[in-house]
């Protein structure tokens, strides 16, 4: 029973592939009088599989995007003691459908002096990397769309593509707010890419592979006790996870790092000049990128699709990703936006040294003997002390100076 649900999606996929191949055979018999050759049948099957994977990922995550916007609005509303959307469908669940229809029917405005081609292409270009990132995540048992040996690197490389799209949007609109927003976006995303990658390095060091499937495989089996093998329970893994979360928030341009679209100072930043469905595409790219980041966080630190055999593996993956998305929403409802100098100082003066030191801690962990339980405990304590000390130093000396309180001469 468990296996049936665990592999449900794969079974359905195989059924569709079989159906397509059978249809192909039938058509071929009708036209040429003989069934498809072995090679042709194989090609048809492979092609169908690719299309199916794409359609499933797009479909599932487009739906998730819709639900995430609903969830975000609901949670933010409740944090602010409001009701949130509650008119369309039960609990306002279909609000995103109404929003989508509204966006689709809106006028598409292109500024007269915009760079038309760049302005037109940017929304498509911004969505592509966000969707492509899912190609490298294993969603469940036997459910990795690709099995790349360098999946982690590829993930970051693809993700970096969205910077160019944001800059295209800002540049193409020929608007000073958009160009400012785009500049901020590029500066911020490049700065935070470094701690993001450095936060992932310890996992790669310990697993000894860049393949996401192997990283997941290294984090245990499906028992309750095996949950302890998730990397987040080790000191370096915990520190890495926190670093990763912060950097991922900045990478997906979310509050408190949403300076590129800071409404109060830049109207809407790089997408000021976008309306209608092009605007919706930016919105979608932000959310889908956020979910991809959450997926990578789950893969690297939270044991991927592993979990006790109460739920199918893909549900574990989605559930953990959902928790990270909830965390990001909670954070958005809590923190105000940073200043640009604080943002940069935090990336370069606090996160970068801490991430580098975390790599060192991982090396210590790697070389400490962990054969017996006692030795493991000692290794755990030693690395925990190292991480705590580094955190203390960073917060005491680096952040104090970076975020020094401003003295107001007249107001206070």
């Amino acid at each position, binding site marked *: 029973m468990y296996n049936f649900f665990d592999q449900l999606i794969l079974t359905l996929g195989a059924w569709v592939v079989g159906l397509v191949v059978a249809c192909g055979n039938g058509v071929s018999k009708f036209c040429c009088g003989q069934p498809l050759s072995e090679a042709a049948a194989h090609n048809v099957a492979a092609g169908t599989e690719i299309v199916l994977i794409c359609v499933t990922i797009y479909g599932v995550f487009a739906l998730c995007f819709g639900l995430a916007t609903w969830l975000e609005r609901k*949670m933010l509303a*409740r*944090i*602010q*003691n*409001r*009701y949130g959307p*509650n008119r369309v469908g039960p609990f306002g669940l279909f609000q995103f459908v109404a929003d989508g229809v509204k966006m689709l029917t809106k006028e598409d405005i292109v500024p007269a002096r915009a760079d038309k081609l760049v302005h037109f292409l940017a929304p498509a270009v911004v969505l592509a990397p966000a969707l492509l990132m899912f190609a490298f995540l294993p969603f469940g048992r036997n459910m990795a769309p690709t099995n790349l040996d360098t999946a982690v690197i590829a993930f970051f490389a693809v993700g970096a593509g969205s910077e160019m799209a944001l800059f295209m949007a800002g540049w193409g609109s020929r608007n000073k707010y958009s160009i400012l927003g785009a500049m901020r976006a590029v500066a911020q995303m490049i700065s935070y890419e470094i701690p993001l990658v450095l936060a992932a390095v310890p996992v790669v060091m310990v697993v000894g592979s860049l393949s996401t499937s192997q990283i997941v495989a290294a984090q245990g089996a499906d028992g309750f006790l095996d949950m302890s093998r998730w990397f987040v329970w080790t000191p370096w893994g915990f520190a890495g996870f926190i670093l990763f979360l912060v950097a991922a928030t900045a990478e997906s341009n979310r509050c408190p790092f949403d300076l590129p679209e800071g409404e109060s100072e830049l109207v809407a930043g790089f997408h000021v000049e976008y309306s209608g469905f092009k605007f919706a595409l930016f919105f979608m790219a932000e959310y889908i990128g956020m979910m991809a980041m959450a997926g990578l966080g789950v893969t690297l630190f939270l044991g991927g699709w592993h979990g006790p055999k109460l739920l199918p593996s893909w549900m574990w993956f989605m559930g953990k990703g959902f928790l990270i998305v909830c965390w990001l929403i*909670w*954070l958005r*409802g*809590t*923190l105000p936006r940073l200043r640009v100098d604080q943002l940069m100082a935090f990336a370069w003066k*606090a996160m970068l040294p801490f991430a580098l030191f975390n790599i060192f801690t991982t090396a210590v962990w790697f070389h400490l003997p962990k054969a017996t339980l006692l030795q493991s405990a000692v290794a755990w304590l030693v690395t925990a002390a190292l991480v705590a000390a580094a*955190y*203390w130093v*960073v*917060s005491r000396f680096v*952040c104090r100076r970076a975020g020094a309180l401003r003295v107001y001469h007249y107001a206070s």
Partner: protein
Amino acid sequence: MLGNGMIQGLLVTARNLLRSYFDPECLTTIQYPEERRTLPENSRCFPFLVYDGTPDNLRCVACKICEQECPPQCIYIEVERDAKTGKPVRRPRVFDIDYSVCMQCQICAEVCPFDAIKMDQIYELSGTDRFGGMLMNKGALLKSNEYYHQMHPTEANEVDARLSQSKKKASPPAAKPAAAPITLQSAPPPRPTPSAPPSPSVPPTPPVPPKSDV
């Protein structure tokens, strides 16, 4: 320690998030078209004309003071004339207020010496016609004194007391002002009582518990 303030903030928001589900009291929004907030007694919106008993018996005497005082000039009054003699009678033939121009300042109600124009509490007004849609004519503006009482009970009671007092005082020599012809625009209209202040502005009233319905 770095992150202390953040954790405190996260706790505050989490508490609000959860509390809003268990304690509906803290939700500050109401579901507007289904639920309505009871308006405070002194809330006001657009002006209307008060009548006593039947709509024919309106208090306004078409003195045009409000028309002149209204800052955005959104009141338009024409005096009714006797069909035979052509002399003005003391009532408006046309009384229009353009609600799309009115800024709800209550000056008309302040200056009216006859307590004939008061402030309404309706706020759900919308129209599809941009230019004439909010132009209210006399028929639309006329509302009963009972309605006024329902809406602003304290103020209405004071107004009633004042009016009945002035009627008592004015009744012995009533014949004179009533008979005196009113010339348009020239002479100020006769005051109901010389002693009564021209402005029927209501003295500050102690806070009243909000009314149950409108």
